[in-house]
């Protein structure tokens, strides 16, 4: 059964998600970061529906089980598109939007195909296994994509503070999940600790994005020297 920490952090995460959208609307950035805001909104509504199903059918119900994993997969795809929108923002001066969209589509299709090849031997509940496998694979694709994006930011000497804050917080989010997953497998005896960390990280992402929209103006710039050391 889920711990009480989950139930404390869950409403806080919902508040933070609404906060992201409100701060974004307040700063007239909703359309500029449309994919990120849509991800936050869908995450918020998915959480409301999850809570409704959980309270109606219970934690061990099939309804909650299926809704949780299917909504998780859809949200992961939304987050993937959010990440791609950050790519479009970073590479906007190179006019590489079409190539970014082509690469994103190819990557999504290839991930789906790979996930299908992994689970194709499971005769029962193939769709459920596909959805979970795809969701897991997209997490790791997102992780690698974020690091590649950070490399592009360094290379292009990107100076937009808000964009950098958004990319870094997304990178931390993906990295923390991968690290927790690996540590949980390495030290399964510390199961209690690993159970508390994922809801904390799930809360940290909307808080970091909300901070970026609330406190960092769109015009704010970082000096390139603070991002990369220039050889003399």
């Amino acid at each position, binding site marked *: 059964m889920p711990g009480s920490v989950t139930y404390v952090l869950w409403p806080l995460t919902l508040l933070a998600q609404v906060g992201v959208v409100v701060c974004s609307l307040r700063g007239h950035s909703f359309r500029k970061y449309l994919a990120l805001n849509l991800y936050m909104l869908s995450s918020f509504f998915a959480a409301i529906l999850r809570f409704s199903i959980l309270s109606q059918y219970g934690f061990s119900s099939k309804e909650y089980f299926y809704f949780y994993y299917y909504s998780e997969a859809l949200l992961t795809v939304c987050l993937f598109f959010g990440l791609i929108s950050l790519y479009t923002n970073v590479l906007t001066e190179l006019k590489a939007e079409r190539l970014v969209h082509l690469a994103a589509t190819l990557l999504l299709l290839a991930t789906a195909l790979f996930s299908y090849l992994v689970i194709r031997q499971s005769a029962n*509940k193939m769709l459920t296994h596909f959805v979970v496998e795809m969701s897991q694979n997209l997490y790791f694709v997102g992780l*690698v994509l974020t690091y*590649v994006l950070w490399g592009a930011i360094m290379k292009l000497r990107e100076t937009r503070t808000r964009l950098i804050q958004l990319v870094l917080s997304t990178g931390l989010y993906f990295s923390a999940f991968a690290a927790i997953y690996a540590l949980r497998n390495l030290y399964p005896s510390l199961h209690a600790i690993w159970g508390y960390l994922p809801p904390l990280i799930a809360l940290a992402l909307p808080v970091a994005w909300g901070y970026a929209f609330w406190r960092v103006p769109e015009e704010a710039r970082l000096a390139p020297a603070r991002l990369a050391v220039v050889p003399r």
Partner: protein
Amino acid sequence: MSRKLAVLFLAMLILVGAMSLKTVVTTHGDGSVVMANAGGPVPPSPWKNAGGPVPPSPWKNAGGPVPPSPWK
């Protein structure tokens, strides 16, 4: 054309990198899954046969007693 091929190559490279990373991270894993979007208690993994109305494990194709693990 070459730019499109470069994009294709990069996409495949990222996929290979991500799946390699996943393999490293999930080595010796207990079948649990990474779930974080939208919060809420995580239901039992579909890869585990413990508690709750979990669908059959994808690694079992039929019933019967499980033979000893080759790693023991």
